[in-house]
């Protein structure tokens, strides 16, 4: 069960340059470094809002995190204690980067039932968002493979097992 507060609501086509501008990428290879510069050119208050909550949920419109393949966008969210992003749609590269890093993404066609400050309880197994503030329940669709990967916190364990197979075969 994921619990958190909606601390940001964005529109359509938020890009990864909005989340973490390109120029910061070359300054560090420490995943935690980027959190300080989250949305620095787009929504400078983002980090302050996140700091006030133990578990943040981002709500967005269509095509959240389009653009660059930078995985730093995922770290930027995770190290600002974002536990889940709920959006109307996600492009492939960001979606896969979130699978790899275990940041749960929920695709919800109609996000109008979610607003700033709402307390949410998200049940990935039941594919249900319970909005405790409004006392409503919102069902969503999620592929079983994706749900398992999000719950496992990423894909690395599986890849490690595959590498074991390969190395064993090589002898």
């Amino acid at each position, binding site marked *: 069960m994921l619990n958190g507060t909606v601390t940001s609501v964005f*529109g*359509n*086509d938020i*890009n990864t*340059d*909005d989340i973490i*501008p*390109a*120029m910061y*990428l*070359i*300054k*560090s*290879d420490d995943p935690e470094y980027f959190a300080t510069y989250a949305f620095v*050119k*787009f929504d400078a208050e983002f980090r302050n809002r996140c700091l006030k909550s133990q578990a943040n949920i981002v709500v967005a419109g*269509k*095509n959240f995190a*389009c*653009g*660059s*393949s*930078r*995985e730093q966008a*995922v770290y930027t969210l995770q190290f600002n204690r974002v536990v889940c992003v709920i959006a109307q*749609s996600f*492009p*492939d*590269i960001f979606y*896969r*980067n979130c*699978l*790899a*890093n275990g940041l749960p993404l929920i695709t919800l066609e109609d996000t109008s039932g979610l607003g700033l400050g709402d307390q949410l309880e998200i049940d990935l197994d039941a594919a249900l968002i319970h909005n405790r503030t409004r006392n409503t329940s919102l069902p969503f669709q999620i592929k079983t*493979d*994706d749900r398992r*990967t999000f719950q496992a916190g*990423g*894909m*690395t364990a*599986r*890849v*490690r097992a*595959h*590498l*074991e197979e*390969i*190395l*064993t075969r090589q002898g």
Partner: protein
Amino acid sequence: MGQTLVEKIVSRQAGRPVHAGDTVERLPITKLFFNDVIGPPAIKGLANLFGETFKRHGKPVQVFDRRRIFFIPDHSVPALSVEVAEGVDLMEAFGREQGVKVYREGDGIEHVVLIEGGHIVPWDIVLGTDSHTCTNGAMGALAFGVGTTEGVYALATGYLYDFVVPETIRFELTGTFGKGVYSKDLILHVIGKMGAGGCSRRVAEFVGDGVRRMSMDARTTICNMAVEMSGRTGIMPYDETLAAYLKGRAAWPVEPIESDPDARYADRLTVDLASLEPMISFPHKPANATPVSRVQEMIARSQAQPTSDFPAVVSDRITDAFLGACTNARYEDLVEAAKVMRDHKVHPDVSFVVIPASRKVYERAMDEGILQVFIKAGANVESSNCGPCFGSHMGVLSRNAQMISSSNRNYQGRMGSREARIFLASPATVTASAIEGRLADPRKYL
């Protein structure tokens, strides 16, 4: 049922027939490359994530196949900081240790040098740690960007995991371009029609007579920007032009590929190239595309109804111009831009930066007197790298800047200050605008 290009490529690599919507749990890839932004953390990630596994098998950390992996320092070189310089050092040391090819700083941009070197061929599955990896789709390959972690997985095992075969939208291009209209104008037009998310999760397959008549340089520009409408990638079939390009160049066997006549597409669209005029994308997204004849209308609209990704543009004045990046700085791009530049000067209020996309392009343009045209006109010609597209060096923008660029992204703050305004256009339109100091139509110079 027939297959699209992508369905065919994935079927071969997966060893079973697949169609859109199928999931391939383990998909072997054939080429993998890293730039100076993601290469260093990926090298560290390989040891961190898999070092123990190799150790348990009594083996040193090793890559899955050294012949299929490339490191290309291009984003921030010649190194703009100590961090970047040390990252390049790390890639070079890793390359020596693993026997993997590492390009030199200034050899060029990742999406240009691998194609030039014959490393990308039809049927390849290419992963690169950069979203514009889709450029390589012009070679009849399935190519797309991945993040650091998936890059590290592939580095260790040579596989991509849980790959969902995407649907395809078929874009049939007919007719020929009019004077001063190029493949960049076509793709800006298409992105404008589709919107920033219009091709989301789908592949853009470009086919037809219009494609067949295009050079490889022109084709790569189109595939490069498929991701700007959120396409999974762009792709084109094999034909005589690609065959001729690969002859004497391909480092791997070349086999033809085309989609089946009865392949199933999510959508089919036709564009008549003759109907297009030069296009300009307004800030802050590539989908804000307008024909050059309607610039004033677009400015008025931006003032009447500004939004966060379509802000008010005060005037058509240009302060900065950039001819470069993986989108448009190949040989033919420089040739066309030089036709516009010849006998003119860069406007006194404009800083014009020209960066050939690779060392090979640079040398050829120098030998043929093309670079000299820009230098004598007052442009700054720099060694091959991504330039200001990345917002880090070689022409970073101030808050007062209005930039016209041949690159692929005009997001807010992308090339410097968040107040700067960035317009996208073809090399010819960029150059005409650099001459006039305002958004300009290149056709009167040709």
